């Protein structure tokens, strides 16, 4: 809890610092603050504390995810130092907004009450609307911001409707009560409950970009500044999944909704992978691959198995690490290619800077789920759960789609490793090099010793 407060204050501090202190202190300040918050969380470990009359509960699930989120943000801040070096104004705001959004994210991981869920989502989203439009004089950035905003609030509308109906059926916003209701519905109000749950889930599916609520993500990913895209595809996605799962974790959903989830999984898997095949803009590719990964995670949802939380955690974290690393590499390559985002900018990377190429390969392989990278363990466990909880066909389809997925990652690898007399000249600042290497090594280590990230 204190962590939450600290981060919020940190955000405000950041705004002030932006006014008076020089720009170079901002990122360090943020990082220190975040680490402090992390420490606070740690202190609250295993205490399983509740706040606000059982509206927030920092149980194991919440804590681990919160820590992961904070660490990811730290990683992004480190990246930000170099990323914002060229930017002259509003740097502080950018950091601050990210921090605020992080607050929302943390709330999402540990809510126990629909109000907090709602607030979390909004606190998470509203800063993002602004961040997406971070490049004020860029048309694309503006378009991204607008699309994100409109669709986001639209989805919140449905989400709210859902909450309202839920409340209507079980006269409470408390998660525990609702879950209890699910197992013993009051006769006559099931339909209300069903619809309520339906709309709530729809709202959350929007956040995790599950088909057909995914339309925002490719456009927004492509339009937003790379750092923000990275933030969305890692912190936001992770938090959203945590929230989603927290909602349905202990609830035995009505058959109908299970059905809906299955269909959604199929659609997401299919569309994400198939469309990604034809993407040549790297960020857009990452967006679709993100959708694809949503599909795999949904598969883990289907069977709400005791193992699912740890799978969820492992998957999202490893996915996020790989994504951050890739976005850093992209930024560098993009600079070298004067703003081009087509995957061909990686061509000959191996010739010009072998280490980067190798790390890129590792990260992509991890996303593809090739053995000895973290991604493989993640996927393997998802499939395992899928099969174990009896969704044979869905899992089989997921495996097939995983194959399709490998293709578009391999294409990028191929670019990086195609011989070329003169590869792109990347200027790598030490910090970036650190981030990239960290991601690469982390992905490798987690692949070799998955136990490290055992929930």
């Amino acid at each position, binding site marked *: 809890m204190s962590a939450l407060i600290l981060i919020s204050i940190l955000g405000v501090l950041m705004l002030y610092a932006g006014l008076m202190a020089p720009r170079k202190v901002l990122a360090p300040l943020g990082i220190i603050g975040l680490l402090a918050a992390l420490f606070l969380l740690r202190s609250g470990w295993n205490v399983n504390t509740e706040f606000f009359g059982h509206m927030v509960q920092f149980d194991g699930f919440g804590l681990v995810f919160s820590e992961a989120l904070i660490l990811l943000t730290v990683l992004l801040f480190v990246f930000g130092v170099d990323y914002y070096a060229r930017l002259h104004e509003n740097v502080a705001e950018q950091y601050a907004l990210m921090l605020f959004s992080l607050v929302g994210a943390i709330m999402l991981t540990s809510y126990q009450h629909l*109000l907090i869920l*709602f*607030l979390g989502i*909004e606190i998470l989203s*509203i800063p993002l*609307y*602004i961040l997406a*439009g971070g490049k*004020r*004089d860029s*048309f*694309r950035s*503006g*378009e*991204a*911001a*607008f*699309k994100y*905003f*409109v669709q986001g*609030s*639209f989805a*919140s*509308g449905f989400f*709210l*409707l859902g*909450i*309202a*109906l839920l*409340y*209507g059926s079980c*006269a*409470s*916003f408390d998660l525990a009560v609702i879950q209890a209701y699910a197992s013993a519905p009051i006769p006559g109000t099931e339909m209300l409950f069903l619809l309520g749950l339906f709309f709530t889930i729809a709202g959350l599916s929007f956040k995790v970009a599950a088909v057909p609520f995914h339309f925002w993500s*490719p*456009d927004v990913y*492509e*339009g937003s500044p790379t750092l923000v895209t990275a933030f969305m595809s890692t912190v936001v996605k992770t938090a959203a999944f945590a929230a989603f799962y927290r909602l349905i974790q202990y609830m035995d959903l009505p058959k109908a909704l299970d059905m809906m989830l299955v269909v959604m999984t199929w659609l997401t898997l299919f569309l994400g992978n198939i469309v990604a095949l034809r993407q040549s803009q790297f960020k857009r590719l990452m967006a679709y691959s993100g959708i694809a990964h949503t599909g795999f995670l949904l598969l883990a949802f289907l069977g709400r198995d005791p193992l699912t939380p740890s799978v969820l955690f492992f998957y999202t974290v490893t996915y996020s690490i790989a994504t951050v690393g890739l976005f850093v590499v992209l930024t560098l390559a993009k600079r070298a290619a004067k703003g081009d985002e087509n995957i061909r900018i990686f061509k000959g990377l191996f010739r010009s800077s072998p280490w980067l190429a190798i790390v890129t390969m590792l990260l992509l392989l991890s996303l593809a789920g090739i053995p000895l990278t973290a991604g493989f363990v993640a996927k393997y466990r998802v499939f395992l759960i899928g099969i174990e909880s009896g969704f044979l066909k869905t899992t089989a389809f997921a495996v097939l789609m995983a194959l399709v997925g490998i293709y578009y990652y391999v294409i990028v690898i191929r670019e990086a490793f195609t011989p070329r007399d003169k590869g792109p000249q990347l200027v790598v600042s030490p910090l970036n090099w650190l981030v990239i290497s960290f991601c690469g090594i982390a992905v490798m280590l987690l692949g070799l010793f998955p136990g490290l990230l055992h929930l």
Partner: protein
Amino acid sequence: MEQEVITAIRLVPLEHYVILSLLLFSIGIAGVVFRRNTIIILMCLELMFNSVNLLLTAFSAYHSDPRAQVFVFFIMLVAAAEVTVGLAILVMMKRNVDSVDVNQLNRLKW
């Protein structure tokens, strides 16, 4: 006092409230989807939120439970914040393309 309010509210059967707010919500949806003027879209979003507020209030009255009304306040708050941001983005958009037509925004696709 409030007891009277509640009874007054309860004079109308719950279904009517539900149906009404769902209607409002649908109007909101329709507006958001089919109108091209961004301002109107924002307003329709508000409409959607408010329909939900109505619903919540009705429910709270019928459950005779104030928590929902608190929730309503939060919703209003958030809606306000969202609209603010929305308008800001709108201004930015107006500056970039000299229009508030949604269909102008179609460079990011496929």
